[in-house]
């Protein structure tokens, strides 16, 4: 079942322009400096660069009242699809702004009007080489350190992802070592692992995405694993939410469970089977990756009708970002001796996006880096030495800014901190 932008016309029309999509939850908002949670409107200021603006554009496009212009592509694609708008809207209303924007992109691609050229190139890379970089597919498994021996068969399959396989191998290596250190039996898909497809779905290239989806699910099925473990937030959300969505199923109905390494480690901490041996003296702040945080709730498939008073029949359960993976990484950091965790102003469901997602880092890098820079300012305001995240794309984006500005703040993936605390 394919969902289309028409399915969300009501949601676009019922937007009341309250600004919940751009403002940090008022209960939590503390300052003008960090009042916005939408990087797009914070950067570009015109209302077209907001969820409420894009919803207007969606209606106009559906009604044929707006011509295609480069400005249109700009307004629609300069957005990380970070979901801050979705959570903000759903605090008060039962609407789906993020799905409006996702399906709007799919419509543009369908009409041949999108995505951005750089995003098309990524699609080509994936098609040719099964990874976003266009690097040789054969190199994908080469991140694995010689001293780590995955099982040939296990309940847990570690799905590494393109970023950790090719660009941030330290994350894959740390994850693999953590699993080994905790006596966790895991397997790999090796060359059967293809790009999860996030760069395709998030830019509206749905047909290409389906190919990745089908292949990867089949690969997991063949492996016999029941749990797909990831260390990348984009991969996490893609597997947990977008795969079932495109299959017209709920996450709960899929044949496997998806888990991020932070969930796994937190589970071990909570059940008492893991204690950290090493002290890591560091004052850190944690950045919630959008795809692990507010966007990570299981997909709940719904089909029905809208009747009087706009009521849905059957009633729909809305995903409001309430049950994102916020606590697990924090529990981990707080359990590590020596780590002092301080919070930024915008956290959890109000977290400011690192800037990388939604195809933005590929097509609008200056915008992506600008957003990362904003987040780093927020991190610096806490006096933390390091910003810790749980996604290689967050790390990459932050690191680029730190390097270009020669900042003192360090950037870590949480797997690196965990490994430090575990290593003998």
């Amino acid at each position, binding site marked *: 079942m394919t969902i289309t932008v028409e399915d969300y016309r009501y949601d676009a029309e019922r937007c009341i322009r309250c600004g919940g999509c751009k403002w940090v939850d008022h209960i939590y908002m503390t*300052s003008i400096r960090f009042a916005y949670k939408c990087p797009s409107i914070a950067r570009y200021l015109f*209302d077209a660069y907001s969820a409420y603006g894009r919803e207007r554009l969606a209606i106009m496009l559906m009604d044929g009242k707006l011509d295609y212009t480069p400005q249109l592509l700009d307004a629609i694609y300069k957005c990380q699809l970070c979901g801050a708008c979705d959570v903000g809207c759903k605090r008060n209303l039962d609407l789906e702004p993020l799905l409006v924007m996702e399906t709007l992109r799919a419509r543009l691609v369908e009409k041949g009007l999108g995505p951005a050229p750089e995003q098309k190139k990524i699609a080509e890379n994936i098609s040719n080489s099964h990874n976003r970089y266009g690097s040789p597919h054969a190199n994908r498994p080469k991140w694995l350190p010689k001293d780590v021996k995955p099982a040939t068969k296990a309940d847990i399959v570690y799905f590494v992802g393109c970023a950790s396989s090719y660009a941030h191998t330290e994350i894959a290596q740390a994850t693999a070592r953590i699993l080994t250190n905790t006596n966790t039996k895991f397997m790999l898909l090796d060359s059967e692992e293809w790009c999860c497809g996030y760069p395709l779905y998030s830019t509206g290239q749905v047909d290409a995405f389906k190919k990745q989806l089908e292949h990867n699910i089949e690969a997991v099925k063949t492996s016999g694993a029941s749990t797909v473990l990831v260390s990348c937030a984009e991969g996490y959300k893609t597997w947990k939410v977008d795969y079932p969505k495109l299959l017209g199923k709920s996450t709960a109905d899929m044949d496997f469970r998806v888990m991020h390494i932070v969930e796994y480690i937190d589970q071990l901490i909570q059940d008492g089977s893991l204690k950290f041996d090493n002290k890591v003296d560091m004052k850190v702040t944690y950045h919630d990756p959008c795809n692990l945080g507010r966007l990570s709730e299981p997909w709940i498939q719904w089909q029905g009708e809208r009747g009087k008073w706009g009521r849905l029949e059957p009633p729909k359960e809305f995903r409001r970002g309430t049950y994102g993976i916020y606590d697990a990484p924090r529990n981990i950091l707080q359990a590590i001796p020596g780590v002092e965790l301080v919070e930024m102003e915008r956290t959890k469901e109000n977290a400011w996006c690192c800037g990388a997602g939604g195809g933005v880092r590929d097509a609008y890098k200056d915008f992506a880096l600008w957003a990362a820079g904003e987040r780093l300012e927020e991190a610096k305001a806490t006096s933390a030495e390091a910003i810790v995240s749980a996604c290689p794309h967050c790390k990459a984006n932050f690191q680029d800014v730190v390097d270009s500005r020669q900042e003192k703040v360090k950037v870590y993936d949480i797997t690196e901190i965990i490994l430090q605390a575990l290593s003998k």
Partner: protein
Amino acid sequence: MKNFPKQAYRALQSIVGAEYVSDEPVICETYTWGGEFVDTLYQRGTTSPGCVVLPRTTIEVQKIIKLCNRYGIPFKPIGSFWGQHCAAKIPEFLKPGTPSFLSIDLKRMNGLEFDEKNMYAIVEPGVIYSPMQEQAMRRGLYTLTPGGGSQACVIGNHINHSFSPLCYRVGIPSRRILGGEWVLADGEILRFGSLASQDDPFWGEGPGTDLRGLLRGTVGWWGKAGIVTKLAVKLHPLFKPERLKPIGISPDTTLEFPTNRIRWYNITMPSLDALFKAMREIGKTEIGAAVMRVPMLWRYRAKAKTREHFWELWEADAEEIRKNPVYILRILLIGYTSEKQLQYEERVLQDIIAELGGEFRRTRPTDESWIKNADSAGMWWPAGGYVSVEFIHDTLGHSIARGETLSREKETFIPPLVDEYGEKGWYQMVELGHCSYFEFLIQWDPYHPTGDYVSGEYKAYEFWVDNQRVGVDEHQYISHLGPMTVLGITGAAYGPNYYQLMEKVRRILDPNEVSDPPFDMHDKVIDKWAPEWKKKYRLEEYRF
């Protein structure tokens, strides 16, 4: 087809920089929707602007407005596009040959300063309530969060509405405006209050005659008289600077109260009469920070998790609500002076409630509204369409009368309006009970009853028109005066002839009629799309 003069566009680029101005349809089309009267007939009279500009300073605003005067370009200032309907107006409502509107989006003007000692904040037009409130509270001060919510702009809200249950203690909005700077519709700058003669806007009066009288009213200009680019607003003493702790996760976020200093009380009263008596007595004893009675529907909104859940509960209890309505009085006590003040006030409250046969209910020690937030967006939640057809003050007796009138009149508009089973409205005490605020809210499904948008569009608007007619006929004060009214109904009745005075003032302030014309928007809307209402509601011909 937009008609925005190219010369003017180039000049705008020079004034603000090319990146802060755009005439692209993609940009302009997103400045069409939002604010009051959305989904009503009024909306038809609006359209997208020909250009959008984002100034940063007062001088830029002045230059822009002078440019508009030169080229006859109508302009509309936009703070948040939340309270007001800030869209441009359709060409046929304007003089022939008028260029397309210029939307002046003020979001870049977000300066905020505090004078903690002397209890005021100086804001620019892009500043909304919630960061100001947070920063005020950290200084042991507070402002109110208006009914429109924390997302309302402080300046825009102070000069149009700014009503909240906290007006009980801090007063009506005209009393909370200090000095300021106003770029008039002709491009001249008026500095009023202490800013007239010095750099500090700490005081609002004079010198001599107080020209703040031109700035706002009931409801003032509704954005049709230039742009206020700086305003000092009063803050009020809270207790010691302790941050009220935000807790919870969306959608259930709230402020945790230190209940020894600030506490809500929900009290069931045996009758509406007893409830009103309690409100009066509480005002007389000068206890409390907020005193009100909310519509029944809000309790169901608060209980429900989804829209469907709301309707399940609401429809199930229909008969019960009609037969045995529950009257809930809601009071906020704040121990401004000390913990013991709150204890004292609580004892006084208990005395009053006991005398009148009320009963205290369990109340959460948190605040979802009025301190850091007001759940205004949730008004659209039950059915998709919403507007407040009345938000007026006088005294409690008037609020009661107005409520009777509106609940009676509403019966003929159900459907498409949501049936609230005889609900009389939302009552608050203001200025320690000398005054009372009354609001009447309506909801409807914009696609009701047949999926046809038009029916709700007409009916909701017609109810609003009816409310004004009946208000005048029954000698009640109504809120929708000035350009937010049907002048053919209210213009001569109140004052009398207040509209003539207002029009004369407007000619001084806006000689070229560029500040969001037309003044008589609602009358034009009726003329065009519901001319039969002119006779039905006895619209008079008003003459300027």
